[in-house]
């Protein structure tokens, strides 16, 4: 359905997206990468906000610039940290999006009611966006992306600003919407995609470093995740030397999960890898990024 071929984007000497190729069909895709990995630039090129320096984006086998109207009619997009128009009421804003998406007038009221219900904002439909919390605004962003029943949904850091309950609700909504759709979620928060994505794409420095199902990706770090108990005095020594995915205090002893090619200590035990450990291994991200700090 959607293909990117040798896509490239440079900002001066810095290569934000470096010859990236991938094919998206139906299902949920999670693009994981640290800040500055090129996720937002990639998505901005896909939706046509910026022009690539090289490569092509194909929709139904045709370059999107030659197929723009058909492509944008099939896409719903949620940018990073949307603010929207503070003076607009939510229903007015969605009505404006309907106009921009060229949705037939007769269908607008019904679709607006539907998407507001989908994101649980029906009771706040007449409220001004300026009075919305960050989470409500994010949900409104999801609602506008759903207008027009697009076949492709693209979300850029969709859970930024959402509380844990809203994050769970978001994941459930996405899972519900995923039938017959292509959903692309770019994030640096691993749990956002860990349990719902059929395919995870790990990006770093503008390149895809690994892609596959979460199980396949976990398989790549099989035998590279270790667990060991250490005293308080030894914690700092391990932190400085290894990639730590988790530290847990229990009965005065610290349990560390370490991602490393070989056992960090003789008494370290091999552990079953998790997606965030694959993420750390391949992107060299820090543990605090994983929990969205």
């Amino acid at each position, binding site marked *: 359905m959607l293909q990117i071929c040798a896509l490239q984007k440079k900002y001066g000497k810095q290569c934000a997206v470096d010859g990236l190729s991938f094919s998206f069909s139906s299902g949920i895709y999670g693009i994981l990468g640290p800040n500055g990995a090129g996720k937002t630039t990639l998505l901005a090129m896909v939706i046509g*906000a910026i022009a690539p320096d090289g490569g092509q984006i194909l929709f139904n086998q045709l370059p999107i610039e030659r197929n723009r109207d058909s492509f944008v009619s099939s896409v719903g997009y949620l940018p990073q940290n949307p603010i929207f128009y503070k003076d607009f009421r939510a229903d007015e804003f969605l009505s404006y999006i309907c106009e921009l998406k060229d949705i037939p007038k007769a269908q607008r009221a019904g679709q607006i009611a539907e998407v507001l219900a989908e994101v649980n904002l029906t009771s706040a439909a007449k409220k001004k966006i300026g009075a919305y919390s960050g989470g409500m605004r994010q949900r409104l962003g999801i609602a506008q992306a759903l207008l027009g029943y697009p076949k492709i949904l693209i979300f850029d850091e969709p859970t930024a600003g959402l509380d844990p309950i809203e994050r769970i609700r978001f994941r459930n909504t996405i899972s519900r919407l995923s039938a017959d759709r292509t959903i692309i979620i770019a994030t640096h928060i691993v749990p956002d995609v860990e349990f719902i994505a059929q395919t995870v794409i790990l990006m770093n420095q503008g390149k895809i470093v690994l892609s596959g199902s979460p199980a396949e990706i976990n398989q790549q770090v099989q035998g590279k995740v270790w667990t060991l108990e250490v005293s308080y005095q030894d914690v700092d020594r391990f932190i400085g030397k290894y990639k730590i995915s988790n530290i847990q205090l229990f009965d005065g002893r610290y349990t560390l999960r370490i991602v490393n090619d070989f056992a960090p200590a003789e008494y370290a035990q091999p552990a079953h890898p998790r997606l965030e450990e694959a993420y750390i291994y391949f992107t060299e991200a820090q543990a605090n990024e994983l929990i969205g700090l």
Partner: protein
Amino acid sequence: MNLLAFEFKKYLFKPYIIFLVLFCTLINLMGAYLSCAYYKQIYDHENFQKIYNRFLRGALTEEKINFVISETKRLQKLTADQTASRDYDPKTYTGNLYGDRFLFSLDIYPEVKYAVSYAYDNQRVVEKASDNIEFFAAKNNLYERRKNEQIVSIYRNRVIRDFYDLKGMKYFVFYDFSSLMILLLCVLIIAPVFIGEKETKMDQLTPSFKKGDVRLVWTKIIFTFTVVLFISLWFSVCDLIGFSVIAPLDGFNAPVFAMKVFQFTPLNIRLYQYILLGFALKTLGIGTLISLVLLASRVFDRITYVFGSSAGVILITYLAQFVAKASFPFYELINPALLIKNRYLFMNYTAQNIFDYPVQSVIVAVAANLTIIASVVALIILASRNVCLPKRQIYMEAKA
């Protein structure tokens, strides 16, 4: 609602904008009142109006002309030796003979004389131009010959048949404060048109919509010029109503050259037509300046830069007109302020040499301003066609 209606909702129908429009309207009307009050202090408005309405208004008959001449002579004679009484006399127009003499000698007589002798004075201009045609034909100076032919064609057979009190009209024509109000409001409304999309991050979203491409940009351009037209029309109508009440205005049907300041105007139209023409030119001039504000809104990422650059452009434009020459060299005709204060373009005949053809300065000024607007619009469209976002912005946000 269509896209244009949503632009109105986003940038015009805001409580503070509505308040500012009303506030500026009030300030403008006060300005009009103060402007009239100042001029009315200079001459005896009340008594002039009495005599004008009773004896002079309308067709310039021999009877009216004789009345003005005989009254002026009579009053000069009665006050020549300064021995006439200065006490209040109910039989006089103003309260005493000296007041009557000043009114007739300094106000009524010169104005009636101007109207009566206009045809004769103007004929001398035509004769001089006719002589010039022969002279420049002999010298093979094609441009000057054509220019003088145009002068003859414009100025021949001019006559003022009716007498009107056009002082109010003069205050109206010379009133510029409303242009400042229009500019101020247009800058406030238009500056956020593109910046607002960046600040709300809607510029990252709109490219993903069917109508979010160049159609949205065109909507914003149309919105900009609609706002300029609407605000300009609103203040022009307020000026007209305000001056009609305060001044008051008379002689809408008189020729433009019936006003002494327009003695040598190249316009052969009525004053009401001149008001419409002046409105159109002023709107075009403001439209040119505001199109630059729109470009700044498209280019810059911060509203303060847009306001700063807008203020700079308007200031430079306004200062530039003070060094304008009477002959209007071409570089001055591109100044939108000249169209905003368009009366200066019509006080005398001025032309530009375009391939040996004399083209009136106003036409060149209009063409230059339309070219600026077209270029700015083209730049905005081009800037929006491929790249809808500042590239750096996406990268920096992703990095953050």
